[in-house]
């Protein structure tokens, strides 16, 4: 038990550069290759789609600032789960936890892996054309070939290995994006190719439902501004790092996104855009000559960074749930020296691999977007309530004006309500899965005592996992205990909540 302080592992391993790298790394990724076509389909015109991209950046900024205050006030890893639990809304937090860890985040990871495989195979098409029958399997095998070693990478120190890797990956992202942006600007400025920008708003679809669906796609691309909240306990000087990383991350990403779209439109017409399954590749074919053969592989490099950030976020999320006994106990294991939640990383990869063989992942993302924004709506409600009561304020928290979470709450509600009028299945599936999470809570988590044999099974599995992954189980320190006044008030509110 006795251990000198010099041997105690560092807890705060994410510096400012690493933090910005994770934020940009999570935002710039699959979205820029999936969302442009989707957004253009909903917007109908060049001008309106660019406006939607800018609008999504503003929405993300409001959300990011809200979560920065939450992250500096409630310094727990696990993002929404930590905050909802802190508010005392444990059943709700548990419900979302199960939906997110079993469906949402692994689905994102699976899409990123498959996209990686798809771009590699697309790149090879110049020399070798894979039979259509085998493409499904090839995409996945190539994607998992990259995902598997990334898992190993995240088994080690965040500061020395995963974080350093993320800085390099993000730098590569920006370099690759710059190639496309510079090429596009060259065509606009020197070759005067601006025909696609004349009558920019011709063909616009002003249907509010369609616009919101376009915003949905854009927010999927921008999603990731809260990645640092998942690992809040590991951030150095959160009050300074979180706001700078969030604002810088969104600003850099928005610039990249809008410039990339401008570049695409300088060469591709609206019809070309809609017909292209991989818009960056089509763009490269027309502009970069022989070098265009390299573009798909370069884009694959971008996706490596995205996979790394998703692994980071989801594993910390899962670990946070396990700490509070919402997820299985083995997931609480962390490597003593590196503080990596290895079991959570491993579990997440396995779920992602299984999910990737299910049918339509893009459709699943739509359903999960509903659940994700439901969770954020609940978090914002709690945030506004407790902020107004003053119980969230601490000496070292970053304060934002009250209208920021209020505006963001309005946006969350709009994003939940309007799509239902377009496709009520989204809401039905989203709510169904959340209810499924609630059922799991009632059966396994809520009961006072579970049968003895379940405890024995649990302990055996924990011990086996500890030996194989070299992890220890640390006792959990509940943040509510440290603030008695706050705890009492939350307790009162929770009683009212449970009466619903």
């Amino acid at each position, binding site marked *: *038990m006795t251990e000198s302080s010099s041997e105690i592992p560092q807890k705060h391993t994410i510096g400012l550069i690493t933090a910005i790298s994770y934020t940009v790394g999570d935002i710039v990724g699959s979205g820029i290759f999936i969302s442009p076509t989707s957004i253009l389909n909903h917007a109908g015109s060049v001008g309106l789609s660019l406006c939607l991209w800018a609008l999504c950046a503003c929405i993300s900024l409001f959300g990011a600032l809200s979560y920065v205050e939450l992250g500096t006030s409630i310094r727990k890893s696990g993002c929404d789960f930590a905050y909802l639990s802190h508010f*005392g809304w*444990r*059943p709700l937090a548990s419900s979302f936890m199960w939906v997110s860890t079993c469906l949402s985040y692994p689905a994102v990871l699976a899409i990123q892996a498959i996209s990686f*495989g798809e771009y*590699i195979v697309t790149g*090879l098409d110049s*020399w*070798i*054309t*894979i*039979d259509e*029958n*085998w493409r499904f*399997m*090839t995409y996945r*095998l*190539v994607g998992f*070939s*990259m995902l*598997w*070693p990334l898992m*190993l990478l995240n088994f080690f120190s965040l500061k020395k290995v995963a974080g350093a890797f993320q800085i390099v990956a993000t730098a590569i992202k920006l370099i690759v994006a710059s190639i496309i942006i510079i090429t596009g600007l060259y065509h606009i400025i020197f070759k005067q190719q601006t025909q696609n920008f004349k009558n920019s708003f011709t063909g616009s679809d002003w249907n509010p439902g369609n616009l919101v669906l376009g915003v949905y796609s854009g927010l999927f691309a921008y999603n990731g501004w809260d990645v640092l909240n998942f690992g809040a306990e590991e951030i150095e000087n959160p009050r300074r790092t979180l706001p700078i990383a969030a604002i810088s991350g969104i600003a850099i990403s928005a610039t990249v996104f809008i410039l990339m779209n401008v570049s695409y439109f300088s060469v591709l017409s609206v019809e070309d855009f809609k017909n292209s399954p991989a818009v960056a590749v089509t763009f490269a074919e027309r502009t970069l000559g022989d070098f265009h053969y390299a573009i798909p*592989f370069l884009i*694959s*490099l971008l996706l490596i960074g995205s996979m790394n950030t998703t692994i980071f976020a989801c594993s910390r999320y899962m670990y946070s749930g396990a700490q*509070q*006994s919402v997820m299985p*106990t083995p997931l*609480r*294991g962390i490597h*003593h020296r590196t503080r990596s939640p290895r079991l959570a990383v491993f579990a997440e990869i396995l779920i992602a691999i299984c999910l990737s063989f299910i049918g339509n992942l893009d459709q699943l993302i739509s359903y999960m977007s509903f659940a994700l924004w439901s969770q954020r709506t609940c978090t914002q409600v709690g945030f506004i309530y407790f902020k107004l009561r003053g119980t969230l304020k601490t000496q070292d928290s970053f304060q934002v004006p009250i209208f920021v979470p209020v505006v963001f709450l309005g946006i969350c509600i709009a994003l939940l309500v309007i799509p239902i009028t377009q496709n009520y299945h989204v809401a039905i599936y989203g709510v169904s899965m959340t209810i499924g999470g609630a059922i799991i809570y009632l059966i396994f*988590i*809520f*009961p*006072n*005592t*579970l049968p*003895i044999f379940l*405890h024995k099974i*649990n*302990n055996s599995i*924990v*011990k086996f*996992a*500890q*030996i*194989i992954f*070299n992890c*220890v*189980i640390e*006792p959990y320190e*509940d943040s509510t*205990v440290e603030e008695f006044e706050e*705890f*009492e008030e939350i*307790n009162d509110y*929770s*009683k009212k909540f*449970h009466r619903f």
Partner: protein
Amino acid sequence: MRTDSVTDSCCSSEYSYCSCDCVKQRKVAEVPQIGYSLDELNAKREEPKWRVARYTAIAMFWGIWGALLAGSILIIVLNNHDVASTTAAPTTTTTNGQ
């Protein structure tokens, strides 16, 4: 183990503040160890039986990765429309890319 479960569900049930706090105090005083402590773990994992298990797990990791790579390369090389004379080159490129 049972105590730990009681503590969690007590908080979940949102009983009165005092009783919840009392249970939490007890939890802090005597936290039941789940699984092994660090020292026990270090001793246990060095036993011959578990050492073999650990090395097997490591071998399985690299084996699975090798299988994924081999599988994807085999499909790319064998299941295509035209087998060009430069088949080897793009495979090498892919490997370098990763």
